[in-house]
């Protein structure tokens, strides 16, 4: 069964349908139904995935533009599968959370929801693409719906934030385009299929140039320090639901691209660049965390915490050990859930009070205990409390990195402590203390909002205690990736001492 095409097809057709529904309420309901259908289909597909089978499963390959050697080729390995699952889980949650999003500005409600579904199709496509050109097409095209979601439905500075987001990403994407063209020309295989291009670039100098083209695009997307400045603006101005997809899924395309394309297509260049990338990642971890502490705007604060988290992911990818790379992949998923929950709860809070500034809050816990409680759980997951899912991934990344790069891992570990500062201090200032005047009479979460958070918190706790099914899917794919890079894990130090 062409699962992946069906998933994208349902999303696109759903988007077209929703775009023509005149009644706003009906449009929302239709969107929710479509996104749930996509989720159900994705789960059905995931169940049939056999972790120890072929690396790429559910493969479909058709010629698309033979003149350019371009195929419509989609397939998933373990890494792509969990990221598609992440997208499919987040979209219905975002739909439900955005129920009143588009109403305030008197802007077209159905357009917002249609854009969401278009974005979902592209998110699935970008992770499923096994043709480098097709990946590039999705990589660039998915900017457009997000651009309109930020620009049309965002906060006061929305158009500035939307343009900054688009131009940064477009610039990175165009550099990647040069690398994509050069990759095709130098490889000389008349094909953009990922499997055809594996190992096609032998010359180390060429590898380095092409690596840079891809890497800068991904580093802007992820974003890695110092390419991060667009993210706080975009995430703070985007409506909460769009911010969740932006930080939770779109940015993962960057780290996913590093793992899938940079490492595997340019193994030598990746090893060459590792010291620099690890250094950038560690700087990002500490820098993001410290700057987050100083933020006065809740959404900007969460955005900066993400920059810190993306440092962890990039470090895990480039440490090139099984633990670190599996941890980084798991991190991408867990971060989507935990930061998604943080953004959404922050969105509920801001919707009630009409302000993004931390100073405008205080003592919310007394008037809205459920909101405060879920905020605490999401916050604790973001600082990687043991028992919650991000702990597992952060631990894996740190131990995996330590195997090869001890000093960076130690410095990165301070990020965990700083995370406790930024999260708990924000919680203290907004939720504890005397109840601020404007917060008096704030309503607690309603049923819809609770249903938004229940699945997220269940996943955060569930995957915290039982990450095995995810790791079982991720591990074989990661091992295969590292084999293509031809690295092996360093021998454990303890075993040596025992000899």
């Amino acid at each position, binding site marked *: 069964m062409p699962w992946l095409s069906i998933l994208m097809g349902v999303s696109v057709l759903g988007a077209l349908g929703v775009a023509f529904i005149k009644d706003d309420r009906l449009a929302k309901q239709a969107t929710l139904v479509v996104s749930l259908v996509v989720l159900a289909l994705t789960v059905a597909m995931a169940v049939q995935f056999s972790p120890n089978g072929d690396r790429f499963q559910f493969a479909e390959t058709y010629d*698309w*533009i*033979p*003149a*350019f050697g371009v195929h419509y080729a989609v397939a998933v390995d373990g890494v792509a599968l969990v990221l598609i699952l992440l997208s499919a889980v987040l979209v219905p949650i975002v739909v439900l959370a955005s129920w009143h999003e588009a109403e305030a500005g008197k*802007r*077209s409600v159905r*357009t917002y929801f249609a854009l969401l579904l278009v974005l979902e199709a592209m998110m699935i496509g970008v992770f499923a693409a096994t043709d480098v050109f097709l990946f*590039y*097409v*999705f990589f*660039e*095209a998915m*900017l*457009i719906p997000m*651009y*309109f979601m930020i*620009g*049309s439905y965002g906060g006061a500075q*929305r*158009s500035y934030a*939307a*343009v900054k987001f*688009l*131009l940064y990403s*477009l*610039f990175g994407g*165009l*550099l990647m*385009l*040069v690398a994509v*063209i*050069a990759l*095709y*020309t130098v490889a000389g295989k008349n094909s953009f299929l990922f499997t055809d291009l594996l190992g096609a670039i032998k010359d180390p100098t060429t590898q380095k140039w092409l690596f840079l083209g891809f890497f800068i695009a991904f580093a802007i997307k992820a974003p890695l320090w110092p390419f991060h400045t667009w993210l706080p603006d975009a995430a703070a101005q985007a409506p909460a639901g769009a911010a969740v997809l932006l930080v939770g899924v779109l940015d993962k395309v960057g780290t996913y691209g590093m793992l899938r394309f940079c490492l595997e297509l340019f193994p030598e260049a990746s090893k060459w660049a590792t010291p620099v990338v690890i250094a950038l990642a560690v700087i990002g971890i500490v820098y993001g965390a410290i700057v987050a502490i100083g933020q006065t705007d809740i959404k900007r604060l969460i955005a900066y915490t993400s920059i810190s988290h993306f440092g962890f992911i990039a470090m895990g990818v480039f440490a090139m050990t099984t633990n670190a790379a599996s941890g980084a992949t798991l991190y991408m998923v867990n971060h989507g859930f935990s930061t998604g929950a943080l953004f959404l709860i922050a969105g509920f809070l801001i919707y009630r009070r009409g302000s993004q500034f931390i100073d405008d809050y205080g003592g919310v816990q007394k008037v809205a205990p459920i909101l405060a409680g879920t905020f605490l759980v999401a916050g604790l997951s973001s600082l990687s409390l043991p028992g919650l899912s991000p702990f597992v991934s952060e631990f894996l990344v740190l131990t995996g990195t330590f195997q090869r790069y001890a000093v960076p891992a130690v410095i990165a570990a301070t990020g965990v402590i700083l995370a406790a500062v930024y999260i708990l201090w924000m919680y203290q200032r907004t939720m504890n203390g005397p109840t601020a005047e404007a917060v008096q009479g704030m309503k607690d979460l309603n049923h819809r909002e609770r249903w938004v958070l229940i699945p997220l918190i269940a996943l955060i706790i569930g995957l915290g205690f039982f990450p095995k099914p995810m790791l079982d899917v991720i591990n074989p794919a990661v091992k295969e990736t590292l084999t293509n890079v031809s690295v092996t894990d360093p021998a454990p130090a303890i075993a040596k001492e025992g000899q």
Partner: protein
Amino acid sequence: MITAPKIEYLQLAPLLLVFGAAVLGVLVEAFTPRYLRRAIQIPVTLLSLAGAFALTIVQTLKGVPTEPSAMGAVAVDGPTLFIWGTILVLAFVCVLLVNDEEHFVAAASAVPGSAEEERAFIEGNVHTEVYPLALFAIGGMLLFPASNDLLIMFVALEVMSLPLYLLCGLARRRRLLSQEAAVKYFLLGAFSSAFFLYGTALLYGFAGSVDLAKIAAALGSVAGQNGLLYLGAALVGVGLLFKIGAAPFQAWKPDVYQGAPTPVTALMAAGTLVAAFGAVLRVFWVALGNLIWSWEPVMWAVAILTMVVGAILAITQTDIKRMLAYSSVAHAGFLLVGVIAIGDAKQNSLALGAILFYLAVYGVTTIGAFAVVTMVRDPGGEAWHLSRWAGLGKRSPKLAGLFAFFLLAFAGIPLTSGFFGKYAVFQAAVADHATPLVVVGVISSAIAAFFYVRVIVLMFFSDPAADGPTVVVPSWGTAAVVGFSALATVVLGVFPQPVLDLAKSAAGSLFVG
């Protein structure tokens, strides 16, 4: 005794039909009563263009000729047929856009809405000569890229340009700008023609012939005349680069695009660009191909300058038509990247196919964009100032959405035809080891994206002004144009393969040397 020249009438039939219809149009102006003219001119124009297109198809199906026609003066080869087809489609679409009463002045001094204009209308003084003038220009456009010798090319250049100078001055609104545009275009155009002609004379001095193939042959056999050759090539190059609006010869473009009636602007932006690039390819590839080591560095500089100047100056524009003019300058720069990517036969076919595809898709999108411009009106005519477009996305989301889509195609976002055009040209350049040029190209694209995106920001993210412009209900012609352009931009953005194939097979049969 003089032997009659051998003329391949069938091969030249598209040209002859268009010129014949133009002459017929002039006769109609002279001999039919005023009230009938419009009813005759429109069908004559459209039918002749459609007929010429059909004849081009027939010629293509019969097999591309292998020899130049008309005693070696006109080369009806694959690229020519592709360019003819493209120009004829674009011209047909532009003619649909012409709505003479709204766009064209009734009498030279008549201000819109004045008593003079009223009287001119009552007397039936509307400018139906627009149609034959356009046909002459289109005929020139067809001949220009098909010319196989420099003199024919010069004649074609003049036949194409003279009617356009006139048409530029006929805008009904903003009369002074329009007349200024016509004068500027005429003066600068005359200059560039003189350059071209002088260059032709020098090249004749070098090669002893104006025939492109003979010039190419002379490159290898004539020695000691390099002064004539280089100066001649440079002067001919200036004349051609002026027509495509490459920097530093781009100064006329914004003024002329702004002042001309919008349908004429569309015709120039699409048709003239296609024709002029065809001519550039003929001169630089066919006649001067073996001189590449001499002209390539200069062309690099021109291409870089054109891309950068177009992209940067567009940012500062406040007039929508001027902005599109600078955007057209930037696109000319991207196309020049393809012109430089000349090499062996395989590389030539790659690059030529890319340029032909780019020209076709860019032309279609451009006409669509200008068609939208004609529909957004203030009480005093088209809403030219960018600030007037603020909030259009709320007033008429469909039109603003279409315009945004055209702009994204200009910016080269994937899943639009513009992306594949750019991709094809850049790929050809990378294959020719011109990667630095491509890097400059993508950086200019990023800069250019900024001003396209700025218009989208204005339309969708800004609040509409209280007395904002109205969007007219389009005539069937305008609606058809916008629909056709949008459809072509989408379809070629998703399935470019058929047109790519066509361009590629056309490129395979260029008459070289």
